[in-house]
């Protein structure tokens, strides 16, 4: 039976903020719809409306052309709608199996949960992603022990296990590596063949063009366009999203032709670095150099950055300007003029309920003496805000009032004031809209011009190729390849990511 869901003129306010003013969406079984929009355009709110998490203020939902109420996630599930959340809906302390089957556990006649069956079914689900998972996963492992990409996969499996007719994938690929994405797309096509409907939300244009049949574009809470993918180009889509032209041309400006980094002194030198997940990592970065770190997700990139930053214990040598250092904590690293923009900005980079001002100054208060010269601090923060083109109501508003991209600007902004010599960036553009991305790129380029050293991990290959002088590709905790100049191509990058060693000088 062919089914359909339609959202019409959805309105949703959060306090005084309008998240959706006129949200529209139509989907039928056997169809893959890409829901597209810049950050803060209302995509997530839209998916939450359909999933019953959000209580909307106006408009209506039609299921199979009949009005329907979806008052809770449970109700959505009963209607055959499953959602893969961007913010994971997994309980970290519980096991994989418990998480996947939560609320739908198979029971024995005694009403006790049938452990055997639950584990067996979980194994079957895990088999769908077999080969793309790094560790041997057992259904009774607590979710908290898994890396982010595997958590995301569990989240996907949890949605599939419902056997829904409509699956919403909200940024589900953001933390997956390319092999995992490929596998997911295979599955999506299979579901499509099974006459399921898929709503696909992603910032990666390439993925959208690869998989989606139709698109629906949100801008500032309003649906501004929909149609078939084959009738539109990426540039046109971007224009729909942002009302501005050509910002998608992000890469070319970056490597700044006149740069003469080769003559600059080496700033950071890493020798034989080893932690739980990486080993034998050695490289040098010069002043004014932007070095990328690539590879599939979870190959030790994060640990590499955290180790340099002193947040996790390591063995090996790290030299800064020829001086050996061994940071025991981020504090001392910061004192040595190093900054880190962490990977999960909500959990690691921001104080959500505190003001923008306080977030910007978090590492910097010691500069303002006693009693703190608040006026001076506000002035400085305002300058940073201007420099980053930070869109905000006031410095005293909480960070939680900002959109994702603007929040990420705050994470970077707090370091600009310290003006560190070396930036460690852990996937800073993850889940950030294209507009903000391009602003970032020019910021990074500017920093390099000022002679700063940047170590830049990104899960977006295009970004690395476009932006970096040099890319170190990590695979399974070691540097598999170092790509520069001509060898820095997408082919080589992907090959090295997969552990194929012919990708250039190692």
């Amino acid at each position: 039976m062919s089914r359909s869901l339609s959202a019409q003129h959805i309105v949703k306010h959060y306090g005084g903020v309008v998240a959706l003013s006129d949200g529209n969406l139509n989907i039928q079984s056997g169809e893959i719809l890409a829901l597209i929009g810049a950050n803060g355009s209302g995509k997530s709110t839209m998916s939450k409306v359909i999933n019953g998490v959000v209580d909307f203020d106006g408009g209506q939902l039609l299921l199979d052309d009949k009005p329907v109420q979806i008052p809770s996630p449970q109700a959505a599930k009963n209607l055959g709608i499953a959602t893969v959340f961007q913010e994971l809906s997994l309980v970290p302390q519980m096991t994989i199996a418990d998480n996947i089957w939560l609320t739908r556990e198979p029971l024995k006649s005694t009403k006790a949960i049938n452990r055997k069956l639950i584990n067996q079914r979980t194994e079957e689900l895990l088999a769908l992603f077999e080969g793309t998972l790094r560790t041997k996963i057992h259904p009774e492992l607590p979710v908290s022990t898994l890396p982010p990409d595997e958590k995301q996969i569990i989240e996907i499996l949890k949605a599939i296990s419902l056997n829904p007719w409509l699956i919403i994938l909200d940024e589900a690929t953001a933390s997956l590596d390319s092999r995992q994405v490929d596998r997911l797309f295979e599955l999506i096509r299979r579901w499509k063949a099974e006459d399921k409907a898929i709503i696909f939300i992603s910032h990666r244009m390439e993925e959208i063009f690869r998989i989606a049949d139709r698109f629906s574009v949100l801008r500032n809470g309003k649906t501004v366009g929909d149609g078939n993918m084959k009738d539109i180009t990426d540039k046109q889509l971007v224009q729909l999203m942002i009302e501005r032209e050509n910002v998608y041309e992000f890469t070319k400006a970056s490597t700044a032709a006149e740069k003469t980094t080769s003559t600059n002194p080496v700033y950071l030198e890493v020798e034989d670095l080893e932690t739980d997940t990486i080993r034998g990592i050695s490289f040098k970065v010069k002043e004014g150099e932007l070095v990328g770190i690539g590879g599939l997700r979870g190959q030790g990139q994060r640990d590499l950055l955290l180790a340099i930053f002193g947040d996790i214990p390591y063995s090996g040598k790290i030299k800064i300007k020829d001086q050996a250092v061994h940071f025991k904590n981020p504090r001392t690293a910061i004192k040595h003029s190093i900054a880190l923009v962490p990977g999960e900005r909500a959990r690691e980079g921001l104080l959500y309920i505190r003001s923008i001002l306080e977030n910007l100054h978090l590492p910097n208060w010691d500069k303002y003496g006693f009693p703190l010269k608040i006026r001076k601090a506000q002035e400085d923060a305002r300058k940073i805000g201007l420099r980053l083109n930070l869109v905000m109501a006031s410095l005293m508003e909480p960070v939680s009032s900002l959109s994702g991209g603007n929040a990420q600007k705050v994470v970077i902004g707090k370091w600009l004031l310290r003006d560190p010599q070396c930036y460690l960036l852990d996937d800073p553009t993850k889940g950030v809209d294209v507009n903000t991305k391009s602003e970032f790129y020019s910021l990074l380029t500017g920093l390099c011009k000022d002679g700063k050293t940047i170590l830049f991990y990104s899960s977006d290959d295009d970004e690395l190729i476009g932006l970096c002088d040099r890319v170190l590709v990590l695979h399974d905790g070691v540097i598999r390849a170092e790509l520069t100049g001509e060898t820095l191509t997408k082919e080589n990058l992907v090959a090295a990511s997969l552990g194929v060693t012919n990708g250039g000088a190692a």
Partner: protein
Amino acid sequence: MKRLYISPPVAALILAIILFLLSGFLPNGFGNDINIAIAQATNILRLSVFLGVIAAGQTLVILSGYEGIDLSAGSVVTLTAILTYVLVNGRDEKVFYAFLIALLAGALVGLINGLGITFLKISPFVMTLSMSGVVTGLIIIINHGNVSGKVAPIMTRLIARPLSPNIPIPNAIIIWVIFGILMWLLLERTTFGKHVFAIGVNRVTSRLSGINVNATNLAVYSLAGALAGFGGFLVVGNTGVVFIALGQPFLFPSIAAVAVGGTLLSGGKGSYWGTMAGAIVLTLITSLLTTMQMPESIRRVVLGATLLVMISIYGRQRGFRQ
């Protein structure tokens, strides 16, 4: 619809004023005698001072988040009061020395709390609860039936008496106002204060932003202990005598004062102004119930119900459905 937003300290203060005015019209209230009204208001403020000061450490600990709470505050008040009493023993010149010892003793208990909570990962509730038992044990050992001492005249003069015969404002209130300003400076105008808020919200972010989370947490608990010690010093200056159960009655009201003052019990957001207002509200309610001659059972019910109403106004957590 934009909702009218009143900050919790202001709301608590308004509530206090309404309650106070209300109390005037009760059978035993001040009626329309302005002198009695002023006397009552002064008295209530003076009584709020001790609760307010003891609740200062509680505010810090609660702000530092991660289930922060200090259940040892009551027994620390007793301990430091007894120490002050014994060390001063009626001599003015020993007051400052005893004051320092009181702060130090409080800080030491707080430090042990902090060590257990920070490094052994014991939840603050149980750690401070158990330390309260240890401190009570210490008090019994020190005291055992023959503690001998005396409050110095200067303490009584500085704490319990009015500023001067012509200005009938008790010194305690003046001390409290200065203390409030210092607390505000500490929380809002020092790096340490900013760090307390930061670790109360998110310790990972704090650590990655270069804050020494463990040291800050240790400092918070030590400081909270020291502030309870200061509370003990003030209380003994007021009562002039010590006894083993001196501090315990302040413990739970100190937490309630923080909550009524609008500080998030989950940490990271709040103010000492709020706690001051909360202390006044609680003292007012107690005194109001006294004036109304309620039996103890009704008083408790009323106090419980009032607390429930107040936290219902601004103590609600975000709902799951948005």
